[in-house]
C-alpha cells in the first residue's frame, strides 16, 4: 500500500494536468516526461527492496540488471515528473482551482514518495501538519489571487497580482520558521 500510493497519486496528477490534452507547446513531450517520471519512480520504489548480488563473478545478464537498478536509483525521476506535470498544466488556459488541486496532489505525491522510499509510517509527518496546513492556505490564496479580476487591461495588472501573491508567500515563508520552531530542549 505504501509503495502503491505514490504511483496512484503520480498517475492522478498526470491525468489531472493533461486532461483535456492540448496540442501546443510540445505537449506530447511534456506528457511523455511526466509519464516516464511517474512510472520509473514507481518502478524504483518497487525494486528498492531487491537485494543486489554482491558476488565477484556475475553473469552478463546479472551485471546488466545491476546496472539498470543503479540507473533507476540515481536518476531523479520524481523531479522530472513534477516538471512534466507543471508543464502540462501551464499549457492550458488559466483555471486557478484546478491548478490548486494539482498543487495539493503534487505535494501529496512527493510526501508519499518520501514515505515509501524511507519506509517510514505517515505518523512521521505529524509534526509538519501545521506547516502543511499553512501551505494549503497559501495554495488557496494563490488560486484566489488568480481569480481576482484585473484592475485594468494590460500586462501590468497581471504582474501586480503576481507580485502580491509572491509577497504573501514570502511573508509566510519568513514568519513560519519562528512560529513552528521547536522549543523543547534537545537531548
Amino acid at each position, binding site marked *: 500500500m505504501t509503495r502503491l500510493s505514490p504511483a496512484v497519486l503520480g498517475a492522478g496528477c498526470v491525468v489531472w494536468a493533461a486532461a483535456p490534452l492540448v496540442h501546443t507547446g510540445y505537449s506530447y513531450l511534456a506528457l511523455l516526461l511526466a509519464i516516464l517520471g511517474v512510472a520509473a519512480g514507481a518502478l524504483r520504489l518497487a525494486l528498492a527492496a531487491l537485494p543486489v548480488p554482491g558476488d565477484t563473478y556475475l553473469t552478463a545478464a546479472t551485471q546488466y540488471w545491476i546496472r539498470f537498478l543503479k540507473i533507476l536509483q540515481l536518476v531523479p525521476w520524481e523531479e522530472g515528473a513534477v*516538471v512534466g506535470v507543471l508543464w502540462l498544466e501551464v499549457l492550458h488556459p488559466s483555471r486557478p482551482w484546478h*491548478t490548486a488541486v494539482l498543487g*495539493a496532489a503534487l505535494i501529496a505525491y512527493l510526501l508519499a514518495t*518520501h514515505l515509501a522510499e524511507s519506509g517510514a509510517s505517515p505518523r512521521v509527518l505529524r509534526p509538519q501538519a501545521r506547516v502543511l496546513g*499553512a501551505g494549503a492556505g497559501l495554495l488557496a490564496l*494563490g488560486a484566489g489571487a488568480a481569480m481576482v479580476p484585473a484592475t485594468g487591461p494590460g500586462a501590468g495588472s497581471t504582474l501586480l497580482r503576481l507580485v502580491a*501573491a509572491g509577497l504573501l508567500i514570502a511573508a509566510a515563508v519568513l514568519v513560519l*520558521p519562528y512560529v513552528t520552531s521547536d522549543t523543547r530542549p534537545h537531548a
Partner: protein
Amino acid sequence: VTTPQDPLLHVPARAFELHWRSSRHARRLLTLSLAGVVIALIARRPEFAGVAAPALVLLAAGRTRDRPARIVVRMRLSSAQTFEGEAVALDVRAEGHGARHVRWTLYPGAEINSGDVSAADGAQVRFIVAARRWGRRRIGTMSVVVRDRWRLAEGHLSVILPVLDCYPGPVDQQITVALRRLPNRFGERVARIAGEGIEFFGVRQYLPGDRQRSINWPASTRRGRLQVNTYAGEHSQDVVLLADATSDAGEPGSSAHDLALRGAAAAARAYLEGRDRVGVITYQWDGVSWLTPRLGRRQLYRIIVSMMISRPLATTASWARGARLGRLPRAALPPGALIVVFSPLLDQRFVESLRNMRERGFTMLVVDVLNAEPPVQRRTPWGSSARANTERMARQLWQMEREAVRFSLRELGVPVVPWDGVQSLDLPLARYARRPLAVRR
C-alpha cells in the same frame, strides 16, 4: 538506555563523523517550488505561485539550526566464531543523535546472508547474519542515516562491520571406526583384552587378590571351584585426520575441499566425544601442516582453525615447507594410530604418500570427497558431435583411472568409501564401524 541485560552495556563506543546533506525529499520540494515560481513569473499566472507555496513553506520551516557533527555507535556480535549457516546476532546502537530518526541499512559482504531484514529503524536494533561458507568473512558495511524531524536533511555515515570466523559446518557423524588393537591407554573404547572395564569379557579361576564381588557363583557351582568374571579393558586410540588440500574440484560451497573440511570437522568431533586423541595433518602443494593428537573440546576448534588457515600463522599447528608425510615427526603421526583420510584422490603424489604410509604399517581409511566429474557436451537430438564423443571418451578414461587408484589402495588394505557431502558420514562408514579395523604391520 542501558539495562542489566543490555548486550551493548560493556561494548566500547566509537565516534563517527556525520556527513550532512539535503535529502532527496528536500531536493524534490525545491524542484517543485522553483518550477512553480519560474512558471508563475514567466507565464504571469499567480496560481502557480500558490503551487510553489507549500513546498517553499516546508523548506523554510525545516531549516535546521543545530545538527550533531558526530554520533557514537556501539556494535557487538553475539559470537565472533560460528559454523556455516549458524545465525549470529549483530546488535548496534547509536547515541548522541537526540530526537532525530536513525535508519540502519546492512550491506552484507560476500557469502554473508543477512536474513529477511536488511534495514531497520531506531536507536538500537538487532540484525541476524549467517555465513554461507567457511572462512574468515567480512560481515559487510552498515549504512547509518540520521534524519531531522522535517526529514529535509540527512546525516550519513558508514561503518565497517567486524570480521566473522566461520568454521566448516560439521556434518552428521555418530559412529566411529575403531582399531582392533588399541594402545594401552585408558579410554572409553572396549578393547579385546581383559581389563578394568564394565563389559563382560570371560570367566577364569579365582586367584588370591581377586575381588569377592566378581565371583561368578553359577560357574563356581558347576565347576566345583571358585570362578570369577573378567571384564574387557577400556582404552582409547590415536586418530589422525589427513585432509588433502592439494586439489579442489566442484561447485564452490560443495567442492572437494569444502567436503574434506566438513568431513574432517565431523570426524574430529565424533572421535573427541569418544575420548580419543585426535590430531590433524593438512597436506598442501608446498608443505604439510600438522597438529599433534590431543584430547578435549578445545582440540576440535584447534583442528578446524589449523585446516582453515593454509599457513598456520595464528594457530598452534606446526608447518614444514615441502615436507613429505613419511618425514613427519613421531608426535604428529604416532605409530598405531588410525588415519582417516579426506581426499578427492586427484593428486598422484598424495596417493603415493598414502601407499607409503600403508606400507609402513599405518591403518588407514580413505573417504573420497570428489563429487564432480569433468563436463561433457550434451547429446543433441540430431546426434553427437566429434568433440562430444571425445569428451565422453576422455571422461570414461578418467573414471577408469580413478577406479584403478581406488583398486590399488583397496589391494593394499586401505578401504576407500565415497561420500557426496549430502548424506551423513555414518552411511559410508557403517560397514567399518561394526567390526574393528585390523592393524596389519
